[in-house]
């Protein structure tokens, strides 16, 4: 069992990812599709409810596949973690 490095849902890196402020290319096929789908949803519907729905799906995906996304998580959230 690997120790989780996944930031909590409150981490502002999620918002930056889902609002397209962080542009990240995943090598894990499903991750790219999942994140891109939710970025589009957030862009289409700018409500907080829409953001939370998108966050729930992406967060669940990252939790399930964290072991395959370690480098992506480090790259997406490192700056945010260091700044925190």
């Amino acid at each position, binding site marked *: 069992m690997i120790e989780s490095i996944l930031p909590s849902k409150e981490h502002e890196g999620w918002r930056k990812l889902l609002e397209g402020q962080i542009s990240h*290319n995943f090598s894990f*096929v499903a991750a790219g599709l999942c*994140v891109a*789908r939710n*970025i*589009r949803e957030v862009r289409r519907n700018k409500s907080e409810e829409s953001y939370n729905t998108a966050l729930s799906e992406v967060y669940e*995906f990252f939790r*399930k596949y964290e072991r395959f996304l370690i480098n992506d998580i480090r790259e997406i959230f490192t700056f945010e973690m260091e700044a925190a």
Partner: protein
Amino acid sequence: MPNLYKLIDTSEATELIRSGGSFSFIGDERALAKLPKGNWVGGTTCYFTIDGKSVEERDKVFVIDYPAVAKLEKISLYKGETVSNVTNDAPENGFTILFMPAGSGASLHYSQFAPTYPGLFLKPIAGWITGMYLPDWNPASTHKDKLPKTFNGLTGESDTDSAIAMHFSLPQGKFAIVKTINPFVARKDSPVIRFEGNNSLIVRDAFVDGKKVNLPKYILENKVDFRFPIQANYSGTLINVSLPPEIQGEEMLLHQAVFSDMDYRFTEVAPEFKDSQKSCANNVIDPKKFIAGCSCILNHLSFNTNGGALCGIDGPLTFGEICYQIVGNTSVYLEMEE
């Protein structure tokens, strides 16, 4: 590797089914129709990549005998929009193999709406669009004996309109991962193409670098080689949409849907796949992890490939590939990781 992953005689396939395992069979419908009832699903195509080379085969069937650790939970049939239940029917940890006949209601719904199915990307789904013997190809035919089909081994029935799925569960600690080999990349000089209608299969006008044009006309006037797909970048995952083999008039029917909020670009063969002798797609596969895969028949037909990445990985040559959503001109495969 699966226990069996190769072309076999229908007599051998019959013995396998009677031995009680769970299989997928892919072949000509006449060959699939000879198989007895049992725990299997089938899909039609007469074209395969074997040892990195394209072959046509109408008498044998291609068998996929899934790894013993994968437990078949159920076989589900979907007509039309009921295919949207595929993610609900899939086990929490496992994978789904989905076959859909080309032109079926299920495949049209899936192409247009799968990217919006809730939770689609949380459960691995791979598969393909089934086809047929190409000299018989006539999309307008009303004779069901010459159309792409799926087979339900449980009942022995075949259908031109139903998608069929095998849902497998995996034990804790094992994961199925869907991967792709995409031999195309966006051309550096490509304009950005945006579509007006969302989820469209029929395309007329589009915005090319912001200017509204009739896209079929634009492609012809600018001598764009439409053997190459157009491509969108989904946060690093490159998804191809195949262009039709012929473009006439002011409308064209795409093989996969395009979406109004994605940027598309014209493509070329990726540099690493240009030398067909050195770039056999099979070299990318890890045989210890590999479960099953398929490759697009268009790459074989359009580029006269008989080897190399454009020929695809060993397995069926298919009329659209399923990597969660429907993609084109791509090899899709499933691996098992720990």
